[in-house]
Structure formats: structure tokens, C-alpha cells
């Protein structure tokens, strides 16, 4: 039993993740369409609900091209490295108190280490393609990843200070014990991590390696079909990973809002929050059933109704677990809240993508090294000081952390003001 459950979880994750990635793409396209005053995919399935499956089939059936002068071994290996490392990181991600493959006591470091290895997929793939666009994209991507990893890591440490543990599980439990999500103690750390994670996953406005008009598609230029979809999967898996890290460290992981009140005031109305997930999903189900008859084609009606039924089943499970033992309740609802937070975080990614223009490479590097990393360091020091004060003098951490935030904000203002050099190209100085 000690081994069966983790293996089961692993199988579930590997099986579900491609599907999930596909539906995140659909979500992306729908959100983009909504922000741009259009409809997005509407043809395949009702409201494009089957679009990801059609896309997947298309990708798998495409011809697999290996450039003639490519390094065949590495060309073959690189996407696998990318996707393996992305999937490996899920081993330590707690998607709920019960749903975690392994609770390592170096959990966070493990995830960071493994996902930092994904860079090899990019660099080797870019090199193996034997194309200038690929190589340049790969080098840019790698430089960007290395730079922003530093900033993101420093942002994470500010939350680690509060948790006092590297185990993902303990971090969440620490937030439960302290009665507050860490985002409220270290909002700036969260901000830094967010920017860093967007850059790490090569998303807009930091998507230079992929979308910069002169680099075509960056390191993926020469890839097609299945290999390309592996890269794609890795990218979206990485997005979920960074969202999962942010959720665990800053947003309370699987905890529902006001989780700690549960202990303080048993039986109070705040318990109603437990019913919220099932009601929400029930609402979605009702909406699906409302839309089903309006679909133009019979099969679309059927699919819509099936989706509604699925939502109904999920709502049932969520509601049913309310009456089961506390462990089951926590497990099921924990997974729900975790996924809800992950998707909220991912939504921000999409939001940024469709709002901001793209940085230029030198601006990107300047933002990373001259703004984010100094800010992260200052944030770390102020937070550590706040923690020390509250420990030594017995002040409330809430007060000292606010002081720390104010100081850090002042420094941020100062940094931002100093950064306001005009964007003219800096005078050439070395590489």
C-alpha cells in the first residue's frame, strides 16, 4: 500500500497531464478571444470543447521531420529531456493533503532542481537542429532561464523563511498553523516569483526565445509533429509546476480560504465555505445543461450534456465528501482548491500575455538583474529582519511584516526610478 498509491498517482498525473495541457491551451485561446472581442474556437465540439483533442490528433499524425544535418541522437533526446524533467517535478507537488507522490523533506529544492534541468532540452534541441534560429533561440532561452531562476528563487526564499521547512507539505501546514497565507506576509516575494516564473516559462511579455519575430519559433523551429508536441507539453507542464509552487508557497496550497477558522470557531457559518466548491461546480453543470439545447448540431448537444453530467458528478463527489470522514473531505476539497488556485495563477499568465507588448532582450536582462534581483535581496533581508524582531522582541509578525513590506516598497520605488533610463540602446560594451 505504501508503494501502490504513489504509483497510482504517478500514472494518473502522466495520463491526465497532456489532456490538461490541451485544455489549458483551449482556455488560453478562449481567454484571448474574450479579451480581444471575438469568440475563439467554436467549431470542434460545443464552444470548441473538443478542440484540444482535435489538435492532439493533428499533431500526432503529422510527419516527423528530422533535418538532414541535425545531430540525430540529441535531436531525438532533447524533447524527451524537456518533458521528462517537467513531469518529474510533479513527484513532490502536493495537489492536496492526500494527493502527493512523495513528500520529500527537500521537496521544493527538488522541484526547482528538476525543472532547472529542463533547460537541457531547450539548449540541446536548439543546438541539435543545426539552424541559426534554433541556436539563437536556445541561447536566449537558456540565458533568460538562468537569470530569472535566481530572482524567482530569492522570491521563494522569503516565504521559506516563514515556513521553516523545504517539505512542500510542511510549508502548507505552516500556513495553516499561522492562520495566514504567506502571500499576505510577503506579497513582494510573490510578485517577484510571479515575474520570474513567467520569464522562466518563456511566456509573454518575456517570450523572446519563441515569438521574437526574427527568431521564427526559437529552439522549436526545426521540430514538428510529435516531438514538437512534446516540447509543447513540457512548456505547459512547466507552467502548471510554477503555478503549483506559487500556490503551495504563497497561496496556501490545498487550504481553502479561512481554513484556520475551522479550528478556532467550530460550527460557525464560515463552515459554509466547505459547500462552496460543490455549489460552484453545480453552477457550471447547470450552465452546461442550460446551453445544451441551444447547440446547433445534435452531437454538440450531446457533448454539452455530457460535460454537464461530468460537472454534476464532480459536484456530487465534492458534496458527498462533506459527509465523509475529515480525511476524505480534506483530500477531495484540497485537490479542488489547489487546482482552483493553480488556474487562477495561470489566468494571470494569460492576462499578462494579452496585455503587454514584448520586452527587448537587453531590457529583459536589465529588468532581471538590475531590478528584480536587488529587490528580491532587499525583500529577503527586510523579511528576515521582521521575523527576527518578532521573535526577539515579541512583536506580532503581522505588524513587522507590514513594516518590512513598506521598506521594500520604498526600495522598489527607488529602483524603478533609477531604472528609468531611456530605452535607447546602451552603448556597445562587450557581449
Amino acid at each position: 500500500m505504501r508503494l501502490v498509491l504513489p504509483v497510482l498517482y504517478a500514472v494518473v498525473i502522466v495520463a491526465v497531464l497532456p489532456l490538461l495541457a490541451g485544455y489549458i491551451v483551449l482556455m488560453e485561446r478562449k481567454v484571448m478571444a474574450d479579451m480581444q472581442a471575438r469568440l475563439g474556437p467554436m467549431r470542434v465540439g460545443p464552444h470548441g470543447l473538443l478542440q484540444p483533442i482535435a489538435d492532439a490528433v493533428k499533431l500526432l499524425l503529422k510527419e516527423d521531420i528530422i533535418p538532414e544535418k541535425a545531430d540525430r541522437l540529441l535531436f531525438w533526446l532533447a524533447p524527451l529531456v524537456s518533458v521528462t524533467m517537467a513531469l518529474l517535478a510533479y513527484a513532490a507537488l502536493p495537489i492536496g493533503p492526500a494527493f502527493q507522490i512523495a513528500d520529500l523533506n527537500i521537496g521544493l529544492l527538488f522541484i526547482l532542481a528538476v525543472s532547472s534541468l529542463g533547460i537541457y532540452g531547450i539548449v540541446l534541441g536548439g543546438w541539435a537542429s543545426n539552424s541559426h534560429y534554433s541556436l539563437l533561440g536556445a541561447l536566449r532561452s537558456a540565458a533568460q532561464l538562468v537569470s530569472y531562476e535566481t530572482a524567482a528563487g530569492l522570491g521563494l526564499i522569503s516565504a521559506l523563511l516563514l515556513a521553516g521547512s523545504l517539505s512542500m507539505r510542511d510549508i502548507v501546514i505552516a500556513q495553516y498553523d499561522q492562520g495566514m497565507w504567506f502571500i499576505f506576509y510577503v506579497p513582494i516575494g510573490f510578485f517577484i516569483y510571479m515575474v520570474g516564473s513567467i520569464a522562466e516559462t518563456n511566456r509573454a511579455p518575456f517570450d523572446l526565445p519563441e515569438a521574437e519575430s526574427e527568431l521564427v519559433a526559437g529552439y522549436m523551429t526545426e521540430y514538428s509533429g510529435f516531438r514538437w508536441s512534446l516540447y509543447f507539453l513540457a512548456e505547459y507542464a512547466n507552467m502548471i509546476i510554477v503555478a503549483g509552487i506559487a500556490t503551495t508557497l504563497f497561496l496556501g496550497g490545498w487550504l481553502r480560504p479561512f481554513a484556520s477558522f475551522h479550528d478556532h470557531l467550530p460550527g460557525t457559518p464560515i463552515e459554509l465555505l466547505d459547500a462552496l466548491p460543490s455549489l460552484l461546480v453545480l453552477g457550471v453543470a447547470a450552465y452546461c445543461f442550460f446551453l445544451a439545447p441551444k447547440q446547433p448540431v445534435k452531437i454538440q448537444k450531446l457533448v454539452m450534456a455530457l460535460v454537464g453530467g461530468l460537472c454534476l458528478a464532480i459536484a456530487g463527489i465534492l458534496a458527498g465528501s462533506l459527509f465523509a470522514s475529515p480525511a476524505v473531505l480534506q483530500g477531495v476539497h484540497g485537490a479542488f482548491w489547489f487546482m482552483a488556485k493553480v488556474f487562477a495563477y495561470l489566468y494571470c499568465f494569460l492576462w499578462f500575455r494579452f496585455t503587454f507588448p514584448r520586452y527587448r532582450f537587453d531590457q529583459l536582462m536589465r529588468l532581471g538583474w538590475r531590478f528584480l534581483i536587488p529587490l528580491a535581496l532587499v525583500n529577503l533581508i527586510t523579511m528576515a529582519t521582521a521575523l527576527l524582531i518578532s521573535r526577539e522582541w515579541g512583536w506580532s509578525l503581522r505588524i513587522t511584516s507590514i513594516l518590512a513590506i513598506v521598506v521594500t516598497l520604498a526600495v522598489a520605488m527607488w529602483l524603478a526610478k533609477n531604472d528609468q533610463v531611456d530605452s535607447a540602446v546602451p552603448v556597445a560594451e562587450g557581449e
Partner: protein
Amino acid sequence: MSDPRTTELSNVSTTVLGADEIILNMGPQHPSTHGVLRVKLKLDGERVVDSECIIGYLHRGVEKIAEHRSYQQFAPYVDRMDYVAAVSNGLGYCEAVEKLLGAEAPLRARVVRTILTELQRIASHLLWLGTHALDIGALTPVFYCFREREEILKIFEKYCGARLTTHAFRIGGLQYETYDGFEQDVKRFCDDFTHRIDEYETLLTENRIWVGRTKGVGILSAADAIALGVTGPVLRASGVKWDLRKAMPYAAYDQYKFEIPTRETGDTYDRYVVRMEEMRQSRLICLQAIENIPAGPIMARIGKVLKPPPGEVYHSIEAPKGELGYYIVSDGTTQPYRVRVRPPSFINLQAFDKMARGSLVADVVAIIGTIDIVLGEVDR
């Protein structure tokens, strides 16, 4: 350097390459060169050391065609030059021929022409804004811009049946009377449009990344701009207050009040600001004109067969992209002896090298976008 005849034996390829220098060809098939412009860049790392625009991929011999068509027959051809501002092209041509004939369109026709041309200016700037923002990586403005441009194109369609290459005007005036509800349509659009511009500006004007990508990029000084013959918003962004609508009023522009927006630095951001302000001014002109469209005929009495007296004429208008001039020589027959077009895009493109030298590759995309070229007009 923008001479179409020197394609391969160009200054860029013949100069000796330094140790870390490479030649990069952007285009003619490239998402951000707006059609079939080919830019040959000499790069030191990512920095542009030298550049050259190679054009002519869309050359159709428009000027030559003119010599074998009657004056009226040639009118639709001019729409195909700057195909995103066809109405303005038509206006310039019609007025040039009218000048040659010594005729003038009736006032009503001139007012309607003004309204349509200003709408066309807005449409052209909208297209520029959308694609320029897209080049710099902002994905969303292009859809908003096309939404509003659609409204303008609908007005064109209702008026003359065509959306893109409209052939809206005839020599001597207008072919069609305005349709019922024309004023209301334009007014509704103008009333709505002011909020829409605000919407674009909230997305871009104050946006740190947008400012970072455009400010200080592709600077063109006023002296350089004048020396290169640059016109239109590019010139005005460099601080030269020159607008043919004020300097040599044509159509009905002398009747309306409007400002000529200018900026000082002449960088990409300034050109953006100038064009945004121009859209607002165009909207104001439309509103003023729509208030009071005089009654009367829409066509001057010029006869069916045009035989201008021998002579030559140069007439230019302020097209969305700059000074659009027509030089027409008549030998007294029904066909022009020679038509020469002064396209703003072609002349403005000459400033590219000046702007791009010393910038990064990523800026080249922004600079091509900011000049606002249409290759149909550059190559003719």
C-alpha cells in the same frame, strides 16, 4: 539605397565584413516586414551596423499603365497603390486631373470628399496601430483596431459598394450621392470613436514596456527628415509643423478648424503619439463637416470625354502616410502623356537606414512598423 535597380550589387554586400559581423536578410517573406520588403542588415552581434532596403517585389508598373488608359480609366488603378488608404489616393488623382482641366468639384462634393478622406485616414492609422503593436508583441490592440476599422469600411461599403479599393470619387466630383443616414453613421462612429482611442491609449501609451520599446528607438532629427524629404506623421514627430491640409488647403479643409500635432524627439514613441492625436483631429474634422454638408450638385460640368489642354500639373495632398503627389503631363489627347506618383511610403522608407543604424535587431521591427509603409505604394 532604396533604388530598386541595385539589388545585389548593394553597398551592404560589397563592404568588408568585420570579425563578428554577419549579414541577415529579413524578408521578403517575413511576418514583420509588412508585405514584401526585404531588409538586408549587417549586424555586429545584435546591433545594426548597416542596412539596406531592397524593394521592387510588388512592382506593377502603375505609372506606365497610366499612359495607355484614359483619365477616367486610370482612376481605379491609383487605389491599388496604397491599398489601405485607397480613398486618399483617389482624392489626390481626381484633384490633380481637375487642376489639369481647370475645373473644380462643387462644394458639396468637396465636403463629402473631405469626410471620406478623413475616415480613410483614421482607418489607415488604425491598421498601422494594430500591426505596429503586434510587431512589438502586443497581441490585443490589433483586434480592437480592426473592430473600428470595420465600422469605417462599412460606411465606405454603404456609400460606394466597395470596402478596400473603393474608387469612391470621380474626376469632377462624386459619382454617387450620399446614402440616407450617411451623416448619422459618421456621427455615430465619431461619437463612439473617442472612447475607443482612449481604450487603445490605456493599453499602450503609459505602458512601461511599450514606452521602453519605442522611446528613443529610431530617432530621426528634423534636419535629417527634411533632407530626406520625409513627410507626414514621421516628419511631424520630428518637430516640423508641416501639413498640406493647412499649408496648401485642398478639398474643403480650409473651412475646418484642426490642430497639427507635432512632437520634438522624432522617435518611435513620438510618431505613435502624433498618429494617435491625428486620429482625434480627423474625428473632429469629420464632426465639423458632417454638421453642415451644403446642398447642391455633386459633379462639375466637365463632359464625358476628358481632353485636358497640353501642359503639366503637380498636385499633392496629405495622405495618411505623408505627401502624396501626382505629376501629370498632358499632350492634349484623352490619355495622359506621363503620370508620376510621389508616394509617401517610398520617400519615407529612405529614412529607415538613418533610424536603424546602431539599433538592435528587435528595434528594426519597430522601426519598419513606425514608418508605416505599404509596399504597394513603395513599389507601385
